[in-house]
């Protein structure tokens, strides 16, 4: 009942969100392009995680910078591409050092290409 037909469709697409170090963006983009994934959206974000910020001093007073500059990449892909895409991202973004970031995947129910009106798989 709760699994209506509309919902079935979306199981075939995934929405990947990856938080990476800013200077890795180019490599990640190239890795994805190599897979034939030619669309993505990028956001400037700040991150907080195991990699703590630093203690800085401004005008003689110590303070904690909790958040570090990161870049968020969002990519919608077909479900059968998700594994390779995640691998590509994580391969390209990895420096082996703390703060490399994370990849999150959620189900994507529907996609629409505004220009053409194409939907779902065609719209990716």
């Amino acid at each position, binding site marked *: 009942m709760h699994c209506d037909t509309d919902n079935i469709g979306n199981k075939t697409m995934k929405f990947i969100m990856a938080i990476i*170090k*800013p*200077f890795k*963006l180019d490599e990640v983009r190239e890795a994805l392009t190599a897979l034939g994934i030619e669309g993505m959206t*990028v956001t400037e974000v700040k991150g907080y995680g195991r990699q703590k910020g630093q203690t800085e001093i401004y005008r003689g007073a110590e303070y904690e910078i909790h958040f570090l*500059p990161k870049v968020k990449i969002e990519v919608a892909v077909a479900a059968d591409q998700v594994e390779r895409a995640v691998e590509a991202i994580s391969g390209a973004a990895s420096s082996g050092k703390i703060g490399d970031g994370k990849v999150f995947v959620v189900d994507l129910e529907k996609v629409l290409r505004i220009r053409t009106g194409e939907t779902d798989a065609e719209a990716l």
Partner: protein
Amino acid sequence: MSKRFLIPGVVAALTLSAAPAFAEVSEETAFIFNTFSFLFNGALVMFMAAGFAMLESGLVRSKNTATICLKNITLYAIAGIMFYAVGYNLMYMDVAGYIGTMLPWAADDAAALAETGANFEAGYSATSDWFFQMVFVATAASIVSGTVAERIKLWPFLIFVTVLTSIIYPIQGSWTWGGGWLTEMGFLDFAGSSIVHSVGGWAALTGAVILGARRGKYGKDGSVHPIPGANMPLATMGAFILWLGWFGFNGGSVLALGSAADAIAMANVFANTNMAAAGGVVAAVILTQLVYKKVDLSMALNGAIGGLVSITAGPDTPTLGSAIMIGAVGGMIVVFAVPFLDKLKIDDVVGAIPAHLFCGIWGTLAVPLTNADASFGTQLIGIAAIGAFVIIASAIVWTILKVTIGIRVSEEEEMLGTDKVELGLEAYPEFGRGAHSL
């Protein structure tokens, strides 16, 4: 020799004759003072180009910022070259009522000095005077750049600037400062409320009308959609630089420093210039608070400029109190004229038309209030003649440009911003710290 040059001579003569011999300024000393005044004040005026660049950079959107920077430095360069190649002589050399001669400017002061047996009769280095007159030209062009920003194509704009600085500005300038017919009528415009600022303003107005408003500025229902400037501290910096430069603009227009009378005149001009700007700021601040219940910084900055333009036609005669009033009226004009232009759907990106044209007219009309040598009638004739000439000449140039190479970027280019389209770069390109390649 032109009216604009005669003034110091007259002043110096009067003073010298009255002064006891032991206290005289020697002719060579006066020569140095006069020359140095042109250089010092001219350098301040040159810096106004930076002021316009920053004011306009701050008041456009960031997608058009690099373009406005480029325009401002290039127009200053062009103005100097064209004024050398054509403009100066057209304005000052053997002016026969309505126009001078068409020749590149040239002077060899050292040779001249040697020839005359070093009697220092010239009173100043001709090159220093050329320098001072030259920096004025760019001001007129800077005014245009602000009004037509964010939608005009780069090269047509630069072509317009070329014509403005080599032909339009010098011809009307010859009427007054070149000793032409307006001077003979008794038209007074000390440092150029009309001759510089209104000229820029008329050319800007004509351009704005022919070019049309920025996409999205005016709704079909007559509504006005403000487009806030991207960087207010930059605009503030620009206004402060203009204020500083104006001391040179008006102060240097005493055109001499070779006698105590000249120094006194320059001091009066500096003080009055400052107070008119102060009056403009305070009037704009109070007025925007009263009318809009909020103080508008952009209006306060325009108010300073409005005050400065207002005093420019006659900074030598008012008392400080009168200067404050003259400037305050300028500040008020700005506050009311900006929305008035919007009502007419004339899109003036930085408020140059209110500050330079309207306040320029007001300033020119205000001269008789404190100067008995001026008459409203003559001032009006001068304003009208200059206005008519500049409107017609500008309209011809703008129109030719429009029908030939076109003056406006396409709708899509306007949305993308002129920086991307014309320059291929962005004023603030960063996104994602450290990811410079974005």
